């Protein structure tokens, strides 16, 4: 049996679409939603409820629907979509859900993107009020964006058969949209839901661009787009949602909102059923009843909870043979997978006085203005006792509300509000009005009149559902108030009402009303629950946009990166940088490759790409003074041409970074930072200069990426450098440790520094990044006869650890002082002040049992301690709590030492040198000997080659 009307609706009846629902084939038409197409086949049950497994159908026609959750299986599996908002397409496969869907394990093949948009006036909602507002603003010359969640403009007009100005309302809508689209500076976004409103006119909107195309969606077009709109002024014309009434067994399929049934009729040409009972507390359901009756639905009865029905509408019903019973309600229903009967009772009575057979119950409990975005914009809400709903309760400087979102029910008045709001918004944005937009005149037979506010019908509270999606009932609300909860926020959390996909669009107000009734307080005294984004569900894929795959996070690469790739390097992520980790040869694992790289470097020559090191040019008359304040040691005494290692501390005296300082000129230094801290240290410097020491003549400029930096390391490094820099005297006498020289290296101007992070003779060669790869290759060629070996970060870590050099962030964790690291020598005793100095005098800093950096040698030289291992005092674990002495910060096998070793932070570590401690590894306690942190070449004999 079909429930499709012979004519009407904005669907293309000449085209048939095939789809599958719950395993069965169906047909529909372009213009249908999945819900309307199913209703056309008489299918009301979509799924079952999340907790109780009760059959659930379609309650509303739009995004406020609490129940019609489906999983779309094809073209791509997507959970938790509403059948009422899924536009039908050929080949759609879907099934109903029991409250929970399933995320696809496959990557989503669709593209998603984002776009920034700026405007003077943003209008949300393309119903009568929004259209007039947008057109009014557009005629003033303002940049206007109009967003609307439907696939066509019109708003509430889509669900009625009203005439405006004596012609179908669709024609009026089309004219307005046509003028908007042809006005320069106006952007009309269909299928676009403004889902979040934030400070300063920032609005997020989700546009569904190709969802409705199904299999035909072009792969190159982003399926959904998040519009990031920044507007000066906003007009919210977000409309109103019809409110149900809670009564016993009000959740059966076939029970829906009256205006939604009317929408299914006029927009989709679909009847909700054959025989309907209408339960209303206001006038609007009469229009639904009359329209449906004229379309062939047997309206068995209209129950109006009010003692007096509206005379004219009641007369119209009578003229069509529809019985209206005033002072009556639907107090319960019969049925299983579909409602089969409505139990009618007087409002005040306790038991039904008759049961009416029906397959449809249409409910109207009044209207809730959609105030979500207004509330998100921090607008205060006010309870309107006549409407039984929260309405915007104040004016906001940049946000205006128009139309039924204000609680206004009359179309003419809504349009007038739209015109006023549009004009005011444009004026506030600095535009003078253009031609006045004429207000449409409706032929609607429904007079605007508020009804009786009724939240619930007395009956079986356990079966009277407030939030159909959460299976939360009137009984749950009473349990909450009975437990002493008074705040709506608390009741919401206790009952979970309003926490489902629909965010309580149909349930929140009823819950609030019942709470107030139970507590005997005025709703006006109650603070409504906070509306939060998103207004409707937004998928993570849409929020991610194109920030996924290779664009998920920028991959930073050095100028020499292509060489590393070409030579088989494996990479380590250091912040956003890709750094060569090691260069495995055939069959090598990390372990063997690193031992080989270490050995080659210590015995002959190796080199690495150190370009990621942070580099900051510090210039100005007070540069030395400034660096003296930043570093714990003295920098102003450094002579031009020389280099000094330095440690930086925070104001708490804890190490935050280290590096070298090169004195380039009398008033110019080059500071290096650790790779990960480059930006942080530049910010740190700027912060001090701008907030505390603006009088200093110092400027800091990042030059990290200007330079490619190549450490050339090992006893043969001097020979290699000499070969590529013939004009440079590389002898130890002419080019001492911790000095730098300008020189031509491989024919390129370079700054060569004698710095070593391995203890070996080493040169750090700096050239502009453009020359990086050429110089690297020249060094490789010149070093070939010495077996020059490129090495990565892992070998660098081993080489420096053998020398006891800490890595900031590995050996330190913001609780470590220079003294803890054994670097008292780097803390000036002469300087009157520097950042962190004051903290060094604290008692806590001078405790002898602080954790201090030491070396650990496992008694068994083959045992490799896992980094992060805890260290304990005894060879047997006592009962918990076990006293932890510290932890292993670095641990490696060492080619130079012929054994494993580790660095660790150990309580009173410096005093424990020579002691045996224990490291729990899996089920055993590994004995280790505490040593000084420097394990290799303690005399520093290798430094000069």
């Amino acid at each position, binding site marked *: 049996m079909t429930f499709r009307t012979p004519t009407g609706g904005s669907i293309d009846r000449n085209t048939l679409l095939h789809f599958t629902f719950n395993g069965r084939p169906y047909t529909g038409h372009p213009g249908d939603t999945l819900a309307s197409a199913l209703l056309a086949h008489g299918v009301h049950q979509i799924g079952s409820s999340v907790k109780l497994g009760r059959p659930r159908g379609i309650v509303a026609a739009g995004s406020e629907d609490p129940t019609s959750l489906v999983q779309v299986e094809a073209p791509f599996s997507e959970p938790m979509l509403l059948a009422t908002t899924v536009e039908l397409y050929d080949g759609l496969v879907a099934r109903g859900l029991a409250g929970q869907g399933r995320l696809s394990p496959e990557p989503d093949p669709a593209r998603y993107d984002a*776009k920034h948009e700026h405007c003077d006036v943003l209008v949300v909602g393309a119903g009568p009020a929004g259209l007039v507002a947008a057109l009014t603003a557009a005629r003033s010359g303002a940049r206007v964006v109009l967003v609307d969640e439907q696939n066509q403009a019109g708003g509430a007009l889509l669900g009625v058969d009203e005439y405006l100005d004596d012609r179908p309302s669709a024609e009026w809508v089309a004219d307005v949209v046509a003028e908007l689209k042809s006005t320069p500076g106006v952007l009309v976004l269909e299928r676009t839901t403004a889902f979040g409103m934030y400070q300063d006119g920032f609005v997020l909107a989700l546009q569904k661009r190709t969802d409705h195309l199904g299999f035909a969606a072009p792969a190159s077009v982003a399926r959904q787009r998040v519009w990031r709109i920044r507007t000066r002024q906003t007009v919210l014309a977000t409309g109103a949602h019809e409110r149900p009434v809670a009564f016993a067994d009000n959740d059966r399929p076939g029970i829906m909102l009256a205006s939604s049934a009317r929408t299914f009729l006029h927009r989709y040409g679909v009847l909700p059923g054959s025989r309907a009972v209408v339960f209303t507390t206001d006038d609007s359901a009469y229009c639904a009843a009359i329209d449906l009756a004229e379309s062939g639905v047997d309206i068995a009865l209209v129950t109006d909870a009010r003692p007096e029905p509206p005379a004219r509408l009641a007369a119209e019903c009578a003229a069509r043979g529809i019985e209206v019973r005033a002072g009556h309600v639907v107090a319960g229903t019969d049925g299983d997978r579909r409602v089969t009967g409505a139990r009618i009772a007087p409002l005040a009575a306790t038991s039904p006085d008759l049961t009416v057979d029906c397959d449809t119950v249409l409910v109207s409990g009044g209207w809730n203005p959609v105030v979500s975005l207004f509330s998100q914009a921090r607008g205060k809400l006010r309870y309107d006792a006549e409407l039984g709903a929260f309405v915007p309760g104040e004016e906001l400087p940049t946000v205006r509300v128009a139309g039924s979102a204000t609680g206004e029910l009359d179309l003419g008045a809504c349009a007038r509000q739209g015109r006023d709001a549009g004009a005011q918004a444009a004026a506030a944005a600095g535009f003078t009005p253009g031609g006045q937009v004429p207000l449409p005149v409706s032929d609607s037979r429904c007079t605007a009149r508020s009804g009786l506010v009724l939240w619930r019908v007395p009956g079986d509270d356990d079966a009277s559902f407030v939030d159909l999606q959460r299976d939360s009932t009137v009984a749950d609300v009473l349990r909450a108030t009975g437990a002493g909860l008074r705040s709506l926020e608390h009741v919401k959390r206790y009952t979970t009402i309003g926490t489902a996909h629909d965010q309580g669009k149909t349930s929140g107000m009823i819950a609030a009303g019942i709470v107030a009734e139970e507590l005997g307080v005025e709703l006006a005294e109650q603070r409504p629950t906070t509306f939060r984004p998103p207004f409707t569900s937004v998928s993570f894929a849409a929020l991610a946009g*194109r920030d996924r795959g290779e664009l998920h996070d920028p991959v930073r690469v*050095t100028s020499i990166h292509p060489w590393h790739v070409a030579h088989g390097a494996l990479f380590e992520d250091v912040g956003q940088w890709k750094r060569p980790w090691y260069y495995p040869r055939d069959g090598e694992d990390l372990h063997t490759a690193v031992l080989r790289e270490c050995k080659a470097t210590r015995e002959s020559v190796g080199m690495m790409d150190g370009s990621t090191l942070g580099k900051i040019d510090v210039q100005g008359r007070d540069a030395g003074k400034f660096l003296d304040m930043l570093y714990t040691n003295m920098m102003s005494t450094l002579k031009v041409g020389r280099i000094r290692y330095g440690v930086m501390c925070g104001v708490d005296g804890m190490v935050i970074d280290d590096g070298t300082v090169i004195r380039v000129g009398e008033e110019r230094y080059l500071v290096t930072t650790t790779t990960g801290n480059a930006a942080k240290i530049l910010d740190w410097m700027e912060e001090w200069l701008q907030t505390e020491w603006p009088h200093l003549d110092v400027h800091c400029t990042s030059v990290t*990426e*200007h330079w490619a930096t190549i450490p050339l390391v090992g006893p043969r490094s001097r020979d290699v450098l000499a070969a590529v820099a013939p004009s440079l005297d590389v002898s130890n006498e002419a080019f001492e440790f911790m000095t730098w020289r300008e020189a031509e290296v491989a024919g390129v101007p370079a700054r060569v520094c004698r710095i070593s992070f391995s203890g070996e003779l080493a040169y750090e060669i700096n050239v502009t990044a*453009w020359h990086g790869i*050429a110089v690297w290759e020249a060094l490789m060629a010149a070093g070939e006869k010495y077996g020059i070996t490129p090495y990565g970060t892992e070998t660098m870590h081993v080489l420096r650890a053998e020398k006891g050099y800490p890595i900031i962030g590995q050996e330190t964790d913001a609780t470590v002082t220079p003294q803890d690291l054994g670097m008292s020598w780097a803390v000036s005793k002469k300087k009157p002040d520097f950042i962190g100095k004051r903290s060094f005098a604290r008692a806590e800093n001078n405790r002898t049992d602080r954790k201090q950096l030491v070396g650990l040698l496992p008694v068994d030289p083959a045992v490799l301690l896992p980094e992060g291992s805890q260290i304990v005092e005894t060879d047997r674990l006592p009962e918990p709590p076990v006293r932890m002495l510290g932890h292993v910060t670095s641990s490696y096998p060492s080619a130079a030492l012929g054994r494993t070793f580790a660095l660790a932070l150990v309580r009173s570590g410096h005093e424990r040198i020579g002691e045996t401690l224990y490291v729990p590894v899996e089920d055993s306690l590994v004995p280790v000997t505490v040593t000084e942190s420097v394990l290799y070449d303690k005399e520093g004999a290798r430094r000069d080659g």
Partner: protein
Amino acid sequence: MTVSPLAAWRDRLAALAPVLDVAEVPFRSQLTVRVSDPDALAAAGSALGVPFPSAACTFTSGTGPFGDAEVLWLGPDEFLVTASPGLQVTIEEVLRGALGTAGGSVVDTSAQRTTVVLQGPLVRQVLAHGCSVDLHPSSAPVGTCVQTLLARTGIVLQVTGEDRCTILVRSSFAEYFAAWLADACTEYLAVA
């Protein structure tokens, strides 16, 4: 031999035509100048033959002893001077001389960022997918220069023509920038 950050991307960027004409302009001379003294700014402008911009978020351009040059406003006391390749050493000396005793700094940052020119009627549209600054001509006329984010990389954006922009991007982020740009053009290429 020199290699620019986007050398390997030349063909892929060229393939974005006709949506956008995209080309890296490599090896430009670039100097970061930090100074706030008005006299020093004027002197530096005279030495360059291009006045330093006085308005925030703008750039100036002109021809002087170093040929065509531009001065980009990057902050209240921070400017970027750009000119043809190979002039950075000389310009650095001349500008430092012009600053005299006024304090401030001049730093050669030529290889710190690379320059990419984008041209085409859709340039503002494409950039709007990742740039939150209003690029509408009424808000970002020719002569605009902003430091901002494009997706997840910092950029300096110059509006150099009605449908022409110059982007300066840090060298290490250049490939990310190029990959993002290519992706953002995908949809426009499909309909072009």
